[in-house]
């Protein structure tokens, strides 16, 4: 069974169009420069509606995680649920791929790079792998 598939709303459509195109899109406020996530058509920092979508670098660092031992139909064996601090500032939940799911391999603050998994015609899910040059 596959992962639960997100259903976009009008406010998040640009994000999922981005992942389909291989981009991690964030939003920045035109008035106060605040960069934020998850998507919404206004700035949670200053309430301005003048915000713009941009493609993020896709680079981040491992902020925290747990390794779940609970059975999940879309995962085999223990798997890490991770929090990734993006280079641009926002934090997002994700999974770490191309890396053993162990405390030894998952080192806090390790550099990560976004990658995308196609779940359906509409949805590609952003995941993260150790950045190039990092041991996994």
């Amino acid at each position, binding site marked *: 069974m596959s*992962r*639960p*598939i*997100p*259903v*976009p*709303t009008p406010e*998040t459509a640009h994000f999922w169009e981005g992942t389909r195109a291989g981009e991690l899109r964030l939003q920045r406020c035109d008035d106060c420069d605040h960069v934020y*996530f*998850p998507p919404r058509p206004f700035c949670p920092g200053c309430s301005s509606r003048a915000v713009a979508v941009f493609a993020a670098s896709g680079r981040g660092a491992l*902020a*925290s*995680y*747990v*390794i*779940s*031992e*609970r*059975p*999940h139909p*879309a*995962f085999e064996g*223990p*798997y890490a*649920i*991770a*929090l990734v601090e993006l280079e641009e500032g926002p*934090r*997002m*939940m*994700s*999974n770490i791929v191309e890396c053993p799911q162990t*405390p030894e391999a998952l080192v*806090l*603050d390790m550099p990560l790079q976004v990658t995308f998994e196609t*779940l359906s015609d509409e949805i590609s*899910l952003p995941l993260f792998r150790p950045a190039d040059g990092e041991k996994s």
Partner: protein
Amino acid sequence: MSLPQVAVVGAAETTELGKVPGMSQLQLHADAALNAFADAGITARDIDGVATAGESPTAVAHYLGITPSWVDGTAVGGCSFMIHVRHALAALQTGQCKTVLITHGESGRSGIGRGGFRGNASSLQGQFETPYGPMGPPTMFTLPVLRFMKEYGLSHEQLAMVAVVQRQWAAMNPRATFRDPITVEDVLNSRMIAYPFHLLECCLVTDGGGALILTTADRADDFPQPPAYILGTGESVETPMISQMENLCSSRAFSVAGPRAMADAGISHADVDHLMIYDAFAHLPIYGLADLGFCERGDAGAFIAEGNTAPGGHLPTNTNGGGLSYMHSGMYGMYALQESVRQIRGNAPAQVGSCEVSVCLGVGGMFGASGCVVFGRQPR
């Protein structure tokens, strides 16, 4: 204008806690309410205000035969009941009603007459958290802790000590679900649920309920039990998404609600005889102690491990055994409130001596919300 004082004059839990398959969730609310009526020497006819979470105040009022002139259905998770106390305080002080009933009931273990959690794939959680495989609170509420451990040097042994200390309290409580002593080794050797959390660092899943009755202080002496005065309250919410906490090492809702309640009460940390911090998982008391300002963030793990919150310590905390050992139905906040009232009344199973001031800090969702109540044996 000086507002009238308010007190808890009736308090009770359900007759049974733990596994109660013979009662629906709604009946757990009613069983607790009937016990609280008996405790206060009143009936439903005396109640004109109803607050609850998990069920609607409409369902609870109708089931019990109450015609309220004030209701509150604030439902932000397990600290909703602390927030109900805060709202009831304002309502009673301004004469919107005279006697408030707050109920909780949850068939957390048996699932009798309980609505399910419905996933919504278009909610922000559904889009940006659920696809990554979280399986309930044990894999989400726990997510910030590795960051706390790295930033503040909290050790696995210190985290385990939270469970060890609370079991010491539970051993003194005949109603506690788990009472056998445990060691750090027992905790660290228990089944891994979601690294770094072991089974014994996660709360129980049980059935039960509780209810409180509040009224103004001028009427408090008409009731058989010693009043537990409300000295101060606080509330806040932060985020429904654990991934979006402002700071992975602090609960913003704790740090708004807790200090506000203590400031309202006009108390300092040294005035606190007894503390409850909602412990769905072992890290909650560590976050709570730091966010309430009882110790530096980096010292919170050691503060517990060194026995300050344990029996005989200077800040007895979670004296019923907590969600880790006493009971946890899902929205545990009501049981923390019940223990604070028992300590103020002086009839807790693990009574901490003469308890003048008790602080009760609740969490809702997964660091999503908080409510805090400061109780006193004397009015302000």
